[in-house]
């Protein structure tokens, strides 16, 4: 509980590694292993507003920190994080209940290039838990819908029960100003949607490749194959942006844990242009 989380000493301003105490407001069980936490500042300190695609370090007290994308924000400094139980720390985070404490520092990294997307068609491709870090970008576009061209969302998951944000998917499906394609790798007979890997939906997507910006987030192999399929449709590698994941420690560009070629993912990413990344991901046709 939060009472156990001592406020750090602050003789000369907050230490960059010191997490700010937050408290869990609500927990939504998205899938059997994934929850969305709404957390609010416990006290007067809060992290600055996050830009779409940035992440925060969430500290599970007594265990350690994990980088988790910011999947939304609300008034009073409330942050939303969608977390999958993937190991020790994320297991603890997915077990939090309202009233529990969690430490937060951030927001960190470079997010989605929202300015570059203005006036252009936007293609958002999410694989599995790639959707949460894309949701703030999507909401930014929807708040100022006329500033962008066509909006195509392609979301793939392993099976129907792995899809997150069920209510929002319904809402997006009903909107006339975007096109949502949801596909799963395999399904039972009770699924009436598409079945096939996410890349199979790209030939069908509606956008003008010459004036398109693509935001892609998911496991690395999915992003690589998606960027390749986008290239085949004529979207230049420089217009495709992907969000990379690497193990992190400091998240401040000090320790080198997240190094990927010449980049530190925590500082130079996590969102990076596919143009520079392609050779590092083993894609030669760029």
């Amino acid at each position, binding site marked *: 509980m939060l009472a156990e989380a001592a406020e750090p000493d602050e003789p000369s301003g907050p230490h960059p590694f010191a997490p700010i105490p937050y408290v869990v407001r609500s927990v939504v069980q998205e899938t059997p292993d994934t929850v969305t936490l709404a957390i609010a500042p416990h006290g007067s300190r809060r992290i600055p507003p996050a830009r779409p695609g940035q992440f925060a370090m969430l500290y599970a007290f007594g265990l350690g920190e994990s980088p988790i994308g910011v999947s939304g924000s609300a008034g009073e400094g409330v942050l939303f994080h969608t977390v999958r139980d993937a190991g020790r720390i994320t297991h603890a985070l997915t077990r939090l209940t309202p009233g529990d404490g969690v430490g937060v520092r951030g927001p960190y990294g470079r997010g989605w290039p929202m300015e570059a997307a203005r006036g252009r068609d936007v293609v958002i491709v999410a694989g599995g838990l790639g959707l949460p870090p894309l949701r703030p970008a999507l909401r930014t576009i929807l708040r100022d819908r006329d500033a962008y061209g066509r909006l195509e969302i392609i979301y793939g998951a*392993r099976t129907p029960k792995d899809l997150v944000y069920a209510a929002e998917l319904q809402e997006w499906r009903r909107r006339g100003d975007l096109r949502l394609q949801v596909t799963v790798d*395999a399904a039972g*007979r009770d*699924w*009436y949607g598409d*079945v096939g*890997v996410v890349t199979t939906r790209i030939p069908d997507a509606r956008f003008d490749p010459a004036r398109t910006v693509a935001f892609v987030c998911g496991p690395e*192999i999915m992003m690589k*194959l998606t960027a390749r399929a986008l290239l085949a449709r004529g979207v230049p590698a420089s217009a495709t942006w992907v969000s990379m994941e690497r193990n992190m420690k400091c998240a401040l560009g000090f320790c080198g844990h997240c190094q990927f070629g010449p980049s530190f993912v925590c500082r130079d990413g996590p969102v990076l242009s596919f143009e520079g990344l392609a050779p590092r991901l083993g894609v030669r046709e760029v």
Partner: protein
Amino acid sequence: MSAPSRDLEAAIARHPFFAGLAPELVHAVSAGAEARVVAPGALIAREGTPADVFCLVVAGKIALEVGAPDRPTLTVQTLGPGEVLGWSWLIPPHRWRFDARAVKETRFLALPADALRGILADHPAWGFDVLRRLVPVLAERLENTRVQLVDLHAR
């Protein structure tokens, strides 16, 4: 064989699989073809039975299903408008390799496989054109299957 209806011939010529191919080829393959509409849930092909038609999907959605005695039936791919149902009609022993079921009301053009194989054998240039359209479908499905095997969602 009776002359194909003009509407049917036009529909085949418009389908992406045949679009741009020789009108004479389209005319020939239209003979005996049928436009079919099936209700949601209808079985279009059953694994192991003769693949006696080549289906061009016009509207709706078809699920390719894999059944195993010890597991619930699994849909491994869906096909939509502009896509084609399989190549079992061309490759011996000409039997379906999957179940194919309509997910919603589905319209497709069914070309009789016997006649089609005869036409393509008699006109190797047309046969080559059709193979050039079919091989990319095969290659794409193979690549997608590989990608599914790799498991796109595994970290």
